[in-house]
């Protein structure tokens, strides 16, 4: 499969009262065309920061990119001219599905107005000469009609009842599930190559989540769009992803195709994490210790203070990413080679 996105050695610091926190510490991530990649990890592991760094919307002032590159279809987005990225990449080649569909619409405008604002600038039919040059420029008539047709069609695709009427309604008149359907529609409208979905089902009830996951996977597979799907819920990752990357304290610990990731996880953290998911046996297994501070992270491997397999080497030497099999990488000195659950 062709490489679409490649993040290499990305380091991002956040200013805090106690000094800079290394929220992303030399992270790598690959997404191939048409692939759904899950980015899993616990609160504070940096998955949202990574998603925002790729989009280029880290909080100004607080966040600082120290090193690395974000290569998208050959260009390094971090070094490309910001105006060009905003114009051609963001909202066109890469789109976004936010975590909270309740607050991601402006409450003051009908959703139709907000969708058409997006289309005015980000419609796939907008050629360079056809794009409005300023804020007050008119929406080209012919394109408006075509764009509106496309909007109605995509609303039908996300199973929004009465699409034409829905456009006239205000965001608060929709349920959470419907709003997330609108968000998915807006992410698909510019016909992007990559969608970044940041915990898009966390705020939803389980039956609605199931509907949304089913819908999202069907739509992106049908259109061949790549997706980066961040979640803290391993079950959700299993449902939707082709490949899963697990993060811990700002680093990727393991990346593997979904079956391998859940079937033969090699990193001790991954194995512990999977074991803590409640199964039908009623066993409860936690991970001893707490997530480390990112201001003063542990030396060597960041997981070593909580790891059963830690040796002197782990305390001193930071493990490099190593390939166990095709598409299966692990950042560990002592990867485990056994099916999941064998050591639990």
């Amino acid at each position, binding site marked *: 499969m062709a490489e679409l996105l490649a993040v290499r050695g990305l380091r991002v610091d956040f200013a805090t009262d106690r000094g800079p926190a290394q929220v992303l510490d030399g992270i790598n991530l690959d997404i191939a065309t048409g692939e759904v990649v899950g980015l899993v990890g616990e609160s504070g592991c940096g998955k949202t920061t990574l998603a*925002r760094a790729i989009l280029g919307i880290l909080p100004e002032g607080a966040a600082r990119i120290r090193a690395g590159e974000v290569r998208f279809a050959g260009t390094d987005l971090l070094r490309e001219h910001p105006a060009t990225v905003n114009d051609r990449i963001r909202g066109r080649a890469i789109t*976004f599905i*936010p975590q909270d569909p309740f607050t991601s619409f402006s409450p003051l405008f*009908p959703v139709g107005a907000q969708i058409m604002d997006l289309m005015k600038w980000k419609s796939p039919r907008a050629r360079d000469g056809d794009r409005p040059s*300023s*804020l007050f420029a008119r929406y080209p008539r012919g394109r408006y009609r075509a764009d509106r047709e496309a909007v109605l069609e995509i609303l039908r695709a996300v199973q929004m009842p009465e699409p034409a009427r829905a456009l006239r309604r205000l965001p608060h008149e929709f349920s959470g599930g419907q709003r997330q359907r609108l968000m998915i529609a*807006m992410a698909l409208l510019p016909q992007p190559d990559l969608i970044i979905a940041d915990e898009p089902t966390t705020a939803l009830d389980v039956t609605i989540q199931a509907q949304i996951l089913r819908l999202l996977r069907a739509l992106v597979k049908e259109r061949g769009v790549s997706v980066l799907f961040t979640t803290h819920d391993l079950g959700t990752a299993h449902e939707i992803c082709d490949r899963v990357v697990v993060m811990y304290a700002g680093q990727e610990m393991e990346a593997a195709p979904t079956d391998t990731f859940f079937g033969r996880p090699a990193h001790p953290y991954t194995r512990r994490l999977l074991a803590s998911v409640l199964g039908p046996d009623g066993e409860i297994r936690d991970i001893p210790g707490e997530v480390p501070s990112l201001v003063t992270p542990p030396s060597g491997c960041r997981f070593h203070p909580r790891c059963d397999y830690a040796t002197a080497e782990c305390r001193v030497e930071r493990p490099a990413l190593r390939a166990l099999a095709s598409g299966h990488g692990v950042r560990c000195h002592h990867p485990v080679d056994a099916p999941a659950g064998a050591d639990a």
Partner: protein
Amino acid sequence: MRLLALALHRLLWFAPTLFGLLAVTFVISRVIPADPVALVAGETATPAQVAALRRDLGYDRPLPVQFVVYLARLGRGDMGTSLFTRRPIVEDLAHRLPATIELTMVAMIASILVGVPLGVVSALWRNSLLDHTLRVVTVSGLAIASFWLGIMLQLLFAMRLGWSPLNGRLPGFPPKDLTGFYLLDAALTWDWSTFGVALQHLALPAVTLAFPALATLVRFTRAGVLDAMQSNFVLYERAMGLPRPLIVWKYILRSALTSTVTQIGLLFGILLAGAVVTEAVFDWPGIGTYAVNSILRSDYNAVMGFTVWAGVIFIVVNLLVDVAHTLVDPRERAA
């Protein structure tokens, strides 16, 4: 529909609030050490004359009775007679109302037109030199005594530089009386020289009055914009690469204005309170001067009249603000 419901709901509170306000003012104005009747009758009046006058004015009856009589008259639009000018207070007030409204409106419009954009810009470039400068200006605006600011402006622009008249509303004859607002009347009758003179007279009091209101508006707008910039929908719009001017001047500004609109009621309070003192400084022939003079002369019917007027204006403005808020925020409008 929802709008109507809201307006009616507000009106339900109108009567009790006004009643309470009247009761408070009435008690304050009648339980007084000085005897207004004796004051009106003059120093040379005999006790019999004073007593006759007291009976005339109805001041000899028990307080609750006086209050009921007053309310009944008020219901017919009769606020009584000024003890001092001996004219109906309704007439006095109506005569002076346009001057105050003209001054207040000009100050209000000026502070909105200047304050809102400054607030937005200040938030967009926060911690810039401009932001810091504006912060000093706004903090000053709320710390300065408006009567002193007025005097200093008079000192500089009227006395030293001679750029503007010292006080008053207009020398000579006013323009043809259409609305009572000189600026408007002059413009309507195409009398641009009168317009200019009226504007000159209006400038200093309007600036004096507008300054604290402007400071309040800048602060609220700045806070509102900063709030909106933190919201998730702005993050989403940035993530989708929408042009920054669109995000700022459409989505953020609109969101910030919904809360600023609410502040306009407060703003009006600042202006009305300011008008009382500002008019006194500039000899502006409006309600404020009338109120101050009436108070100083213990002309209690007139004081009551002013209080009723101020209370009604206030309640009505708050009602309008609620309605405006509903218009600005479509969530409120939806059935």
